[in-house]
């Protein structure tokens, strides 16, 4: 706290405080003289009563002095300022960092947190009346109203009245940096007011480093936690199903309240709607799986929705699955090789599988799965490169394969040759079986379809499973039959497809086993990304730029944002509304973008206290009192009251009789 005197010229009035002492001294110096018979006797009485009288005299003088001091101070016009309040005449710059992330849309009572924050920000501007001011919006892409702090507070007030919360997370560090940059270029008093709900999930790690000279004030606007239900995720499995394949849409609903809830969850998959009722535990989640049949190839929009609650922004979530017409399987080997022929037969049995002859590995056609029969050590670098780019690679051992090639394929140094290494054949053959509960052979886990790897295998490559692989199937003697890389869509098949070297291709479970294996490999390829973070710009790269017609972007609310062409790609405005954005060419949808409500914003619980907040900005402190201290609280009424109180006490003390009991 600091005190400012409005009339310092009247400081001389403080000398009045000495008046009672002066009067006391003068009155003591010149009392009327009175001759008395025995003063010694009188002094004796005084000594007996002095214990009471002397303190009273001093108390009276002190009270009178205080009364006059308070009166003189009242004339000086003192104003009480808070410790950090600007002194009168000091240039003041205020930057308001206003949170307009999604959580600020939560309503507490009749108004949303953002409305309360805007009102608070407006009040700060009105009461502080800074010389320079600016507003920095805290959202996914923080920006400021003015390029630098400006004196036009009215415009800022208009901006406040127009602004709304956005369904975006807040880029806290970027906003803070921008706000401090705004203050760095000004002189005088610098204040940074952060107006936010201080959502616990977003602010718990906030530890601002504020340069010296900048006063940071927290203005919390959230009063309490707001119970909220949110659709937290929608995941299609597989992400890119094949037409005709059944897809599972896994939906998760979170309950951010202290009470158990029962909610109806609806999934809209390309116009087909399904519902499930979910029981949500307090502060917990529930998951629902919807089976969606992907009838036709194309983009399949998925929208999971729950009944509306007090915070509707996160009651809906979207996803897009690309339904493939077929899976392209390129076989990098001679077409007349037994393995190629076997795979062609498989493709003929599976309508969703197209085999593409690739010849040698130097000219590979676009495909989802690359199969390399009888792989050699020279193919390893190409295989790893393709796998790293997301192409699923199925490598089949053959007579030219070696233990060293296998080790090198999975990133291990080849071990010295030993007697058991290399390509092995056996007339008796070996049997193989998948590892229990492996997802690639989940269809066969019940046993009704038999062993997917049935038959006898008379050739294989002796190898030890490298540490970077996961065993999918093994021979009866423990040798690895199927190995998959842990970090790449790469699978080694040590099971020969040559009918001369194994009876597997003649087994009834062979085609389903290969089909399951290929489908297992396909999802491991990086799924096509349709989802955009809130606030991001939708971009679509036209695969056929010469086609007639320009694309149109249709936002979820039906509006069509302006597009900017950048080469072969088109760029729209920042996606402000969650939902599905459709790119259309000649009225036909060609691409979809999904913008979802940020999951982190669904938890509406505010922090117990604002981070790094001073005592003046704690939620419990009265804004009116803070404002008064900012403006300067006039103390004269208190001083006048003090004068009256001192005089009253003085009267009471003066009226007290000394103790009547003397010994």
């Amino acid at each position: 706290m600091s005190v400012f005197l409005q009339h310092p010229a009247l400081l001389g009035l403080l000398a009045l405080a000495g008046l009672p002492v002066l009067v006391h001294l003068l009155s003591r110096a010149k009392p009327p003289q009175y001759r008395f018979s025995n003063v010694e006797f009188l002094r004796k009485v005084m000594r007996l009563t002095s214990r009471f009288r002397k303190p009273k005299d001093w108390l009276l003088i002190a009270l009178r002095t205080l009364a006059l001091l308070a009166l003189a101070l009242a004339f000086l016009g003192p104003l009480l300022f808070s410790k950090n309040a600007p002194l009168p005449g000091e240039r003041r710059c205020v930057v308001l960092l206003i949170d307009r992330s999604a959580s600020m849309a939560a309503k507490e009572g009749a108004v949303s947190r953002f409305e309360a924050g805007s009102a608070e920000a407006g009040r700060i501007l009105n009461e502080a009346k800074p010389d320079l001011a600016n507003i920095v919006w805290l959202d996914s892409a923080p920006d400021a109203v003015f390029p630098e702090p400006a004196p036009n507070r009215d415009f800022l007030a208009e901006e406040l009245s127009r602004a709304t919360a956005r369904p975006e997370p807040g880029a806290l560090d970027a906003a803070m940096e921008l706000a401090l940059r705004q203050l760095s270029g000004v002189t005088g008093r610098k204040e940074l007011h952060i107006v936010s709900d201080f959502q616990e999930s977003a602010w718990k790690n906030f530890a601002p480093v504020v340069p010296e000279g900048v006063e940071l004030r927290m203005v919390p606007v959230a009063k309490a936690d707001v119970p909220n239900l949110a659709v937290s995720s929608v995941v299609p499995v597989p992400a890119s199903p094949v037409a005709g394949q059944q897809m599972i849409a896994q939906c998760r609903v979170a309950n951010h309240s202290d009470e158990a809830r029962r909610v109806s969850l609806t999934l809209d998959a390309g116009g087909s709607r399904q519902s499930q009722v979910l029981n949500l535990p307090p502060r917990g989640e529930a998951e629902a799986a919807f089976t969606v049949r992907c009838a036709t190839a194309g983009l399949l929009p998925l929208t999971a929705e729950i009944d509306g609650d007090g915070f509707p922004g996160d009651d809906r979530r979207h996803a897009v699955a690309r339904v493939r017409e077929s899976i392209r399987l390129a076989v990098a080997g001679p077409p007349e090789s037994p393995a190629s022929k076997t795979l062609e037969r498989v493709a003929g049995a599976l309508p969703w599988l197209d085999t593409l002859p690739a010849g040698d590995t130097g000219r590979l056609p676009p495909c989802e799965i690359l199969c390399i029969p009888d792989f050699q050590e020279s193919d390893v670098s190409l295989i790893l490169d393709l796998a790293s780019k997301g192409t699923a690679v199925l490598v089949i051992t053959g007579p030219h394969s070696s233990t060293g090639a296998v080790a090198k394929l999975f990133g291990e140094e080849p071990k010295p040759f030993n007697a058991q290494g290399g390509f092995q054949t056996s007339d008796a053959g070996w049997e193989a079986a998948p590892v229990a509960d492996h997802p690639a052979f989940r269809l066969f886990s019940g046993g009704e379809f038999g062993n997917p790897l049935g038959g006898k295998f008379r050739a294989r490559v002796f190898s030890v499973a490298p540490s970077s692989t996961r065993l999918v199937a093994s021979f009866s003697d423990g040798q690895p039959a199927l190995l998959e890389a842990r970090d790449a869509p790469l699978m080694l098949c040590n099971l020969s497809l040559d009918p001369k070297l194994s009876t597997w291709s003649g087994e009834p479970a062979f085609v389903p086993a290969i089909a399951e294996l290929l489908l297992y490999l396909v999802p491991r390829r990086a799924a096509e990304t349709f989802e955009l973070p809130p606030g991001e710009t939708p971009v679509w790269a036209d695969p056929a730029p010469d086609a007639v017609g320009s694309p149109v972007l249709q936002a979820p609310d039906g509006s069509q944002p302006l597009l900017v062409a950048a080469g072969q790609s088109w760029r729209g405005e920042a996606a402000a509304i969650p939902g599905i954005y459709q790119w259309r060419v000649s009225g036909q949808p060609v691409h979809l973008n999904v913008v979802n409500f940020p999951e982190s914003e669904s938890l509406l619980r505010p922090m117990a206290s604002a981070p790094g907040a001073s005592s003046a900005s704690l939620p419990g402190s009265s804004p009116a009192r803070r404002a008064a201290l900012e403006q300067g609280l006039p103390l004269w009424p208190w001083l006048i009251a003090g004068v009256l109180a001192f005089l009253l006490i003085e009267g009471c003390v003066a009226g007290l009789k000394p103790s009547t009991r003397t010994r």
Partner: protein
Amino acid sequence: MKTFKYLKPDDIRRLKNYEFGAKAMVEGYLSGRHRSKQRGSSIEFHEFRQYVPGDDLAQVDWRVFARNDKLFLRTFEQETNLECHLFLDCSASMAFPEKEERLSKIEYASFFAACLSWLVISKNDRVSLTLFDEDIRRFLPPGSTRKHLHELLTTLEKNEAGKGTSIIEALKRAAPLLKRRGTLVLLSDFFCDPAELFKALNPYLHRGFRVHLFHLLDPSEMDLGDRGLARFVDMENGERLIVHPQSLRQAWKDHLQEHIRSLRSLAASRRTDYALVSTTESYFTLLDRLRHS
């Protein structure tokens, strides 16, 4: 006829109506009024006493000797004159109040002393006067003549308040001056230690004096008066003290009452008469008290 300041004609007229009984005041012999316990030569037979060597043979009752062959003395009561010893405190404090219409304590005491002296002498008894402050300032030995009265009244007229008070010292020094026991009337404001006072009176009491202590106080001494802050100057030693009497009044009164109670209690225990007198009362009140005590 010469008039005296402290003996007004009106007072004399009033005093003529006073008939003091001998027993009421002192032992005396005058006209048979004052019977003395002292054995002496008079016509009033007291008792027979066996002769012891050294006795006056003239007092031997020879008729008893003739009958019993034993020597007995015939003793008679001694008839005495009344002796009244007036002790008047003339210290500076007795001049209180100054410049007031009412009597100061010393004036009051002088009026009373004059009246009592006239009364005693008018009955042919003897009166002495001792004026003292720190010491004995003036001593008039007992006398019963009109001339003595005139001298006494003149002394009182010329008397003025002196310096400090030392009743104890004065009583010590006066004891040898009083040859015969009698009535001792002490007029003072008694601003002294009561225990010390009665210690000084002890010799008198042992000698059989009847002691009357008249405690003279002005009304404003009893309650400090109704004034504001004032500087009190001691009349005896000039000591100064600034006091707000209103704030001290009750304590003063309480303390004074305690002092008076102490004096009264000691007086009662020593069979001594004590009376507190305000100077606004008539001094005849004291005479009445003497008559009835």
